[in-house]
């Protein structure tokens, strides 16, 4: 396996792991069906791009975009994370305060569609449907972005981000705060009756998820150097949902496993499929179309047969707890 292939695989895996950990906090732990997750990843990517790129007058003005500040690493990554968090505030205030869960999901889905069409059609803003290209990665002015050593450098910058996000996610999930989030997920009205403010809880975790989602986009755009509306269509969110559901809702290890199984593993496997079976050449869009069918079947299959996922949310047993009489009954209600 060559370095470029390995680098690509690792960076994509890291980005998907970070995204799935964020979505798990929102959806798995807190029950917020954030169907616009990809928008948060995307605003992180666009923000990081315009923070690191030169003004659009450079390179013969072949693309147009706002900003172009040429700021050094780590400002674009931090800016991407910040942008994700800032976007979560107005979106959360509109969607999470009054609406019931199912309407929240629909509103967020619609937001995802609207955001994508606006960016696609308003060219002066972020270069419209063509998207922006030639985004310089971290230290691109010092290390050749197309060299093997840059692959290693990028993986080296990405791994600490994964560890940091993992630390944040596991501290939240295993804390009394995480317990309040889970209680809200289970029964919002009852949580209110014991003094929890559900709007505050939801807003908090929505912003945290937005920050992490923004970071994932910033990391990805620095690596692939392009970002366009076609890479953040709303179905991309569905892939991440599939990952969290397959991995195990509410379990951080499950989210990581899901990220490796679905977005990474799945697409890697289908890439290996033959282009031609005997004399029959399948139509060119058959495999991508089948991938979507498979993603859909995966979600339905897991929700039907194994709704708790590969790694279910752990049952928390406290130190000094009496042994349970019947171990078989306590697995999953």
């Amino acid at each position, binding site marked *: 396996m060559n370095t470029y292939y390995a680098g690509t695989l690792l960076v994509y895996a890291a980005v998907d792991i970070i995204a799935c950990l964020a979505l798990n906090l929102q959806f798995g732990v807190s029950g917020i069906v954030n169907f616009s997750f990809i928008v948060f990843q995307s605003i992180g990517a666009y923000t990081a791009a315009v923070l690191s790129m030169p003004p659009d007058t450079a390179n013969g003005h072949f693309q147009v975009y706002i900003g172009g500040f040429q700021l050094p690493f780590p400002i674009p990554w931090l800016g991407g994370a910040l942008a994700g968090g800032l976007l979560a505030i107005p979106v959360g205030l509109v969607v999470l305060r009054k609406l019931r869960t199912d309407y929240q999901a629909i509103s967020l889905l619609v937001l995802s569609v609207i955001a994508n069409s606006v960016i696609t059609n308003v060219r002066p803003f972020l270069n419209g449907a063509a998207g922006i290209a030639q985004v310089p990665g971290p230290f691109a002015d010092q290390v050749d972005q197309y060299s093997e050593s840059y692959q290693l450098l990028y993986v080296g910058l990405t791994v600490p981000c994964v560890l940091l996000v993992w630390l*944040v996610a596991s*501290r*939240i999930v*295993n*804390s*009394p*705060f*995480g*317990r*309040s989030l*889970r*209680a809200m997920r*289970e*029964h919002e*009205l*009852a*949580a*209110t*009756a*014991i*003094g*929890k*403010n*559900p709007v505050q809880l939801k807003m*908090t975790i929505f912003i*945290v998820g937005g920050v992490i989602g923004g970071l994932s986009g910033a990391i990805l755009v620095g690596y692939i150097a392009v970002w366009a509306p076609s890479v953040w269509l709303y179905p991309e969110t569905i892939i991440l949902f599939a990952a969290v559901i397959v991995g195990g809702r*509410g379990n951080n290890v499950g989210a990581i496993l899901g990220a490796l199984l679905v977005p990474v593993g799945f697409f890697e496997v289908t890439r290996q499929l033959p282009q031609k079976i005997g004399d029959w050449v399948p139509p060119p869009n058959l495999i991508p179309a089948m991938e979507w069918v498979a993603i859909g079947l995966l979600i339905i299959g897991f929700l039907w047969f194994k709704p708790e996922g590969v790694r279910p*949310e752990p*049952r*928390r*047993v*406290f130190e*000094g*707890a*009496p042994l*349970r*009489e019947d171990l078989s*009954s*306590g697995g*999953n*209600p």
Partner: protein
Amino acid sequence: MAATLNGPLLVAEDVHRHFEGMHAVDGVSVEVSTGKITGLIGPNGAGKSTFLAVLAGTLPASEGTIVFDGQDVTRMPAYARARRGLVRTFQLPSEFARLTVLENLLVAAPHNRGDSLWGALRGKGYWMRDERRLVEQARGLLKRFGMSAKESDYAGTMSGGQKRLIEIMRALMLGPRLLLLDEPMSGVHPSIVLEIQYYLQDLRKEGLTILMVEHELHMVERLCDSVVVMAQGKVIGSGTMASLRKQREIVDAYLVG
């Protein structure tokens, strides 16, 4: 739990709750005395549960005022009332199903340093002491209510009666001053009904004030110091159960209603 004062802990005055022209609660005024168990009875559809929800803030009042412990809480959101000690339970089981029994209690406890984003991010060392103290307190309650053996089971797997107990224990973890119980005995096996009755009597002895909606009149007679009767959204009588039994219209409301 302030049992020293014998004045009212909660005063509801001329409380209304309308649902699109339907007057579910139509000008109810009630005083709940400190340290007593007050019963709220009446036929189905009398507006008892709605009134309880309005008191707890789960439903906002359309008109009227609610004063709890000297403070007007009419416009206060439900979670803020709960934090002040005005805590309700629900008519239907409302356990946190995929939390263990012990976690159902712990989650209700106020004053845990780990129960905020910043507290959580600072790590276990920051909140472990609070957690230990609360685990101990919760285990004390579980022992008292005979559910110690179940602490690590998911609350969703418990029986109807056990879920009732979980809900009462959960409310007690908040350190309530007024407990609003919405039919705590409904759907509960008779043996557990008796247990719940004893627990409630114990709690009153300790000075807790309780307002409970209940259908079973013998239970109300045994438990409640005074009773308020509602029908069609209004209060039609109040007093001790014995005095109410003598009033013709109240008997009629129950028999006809």
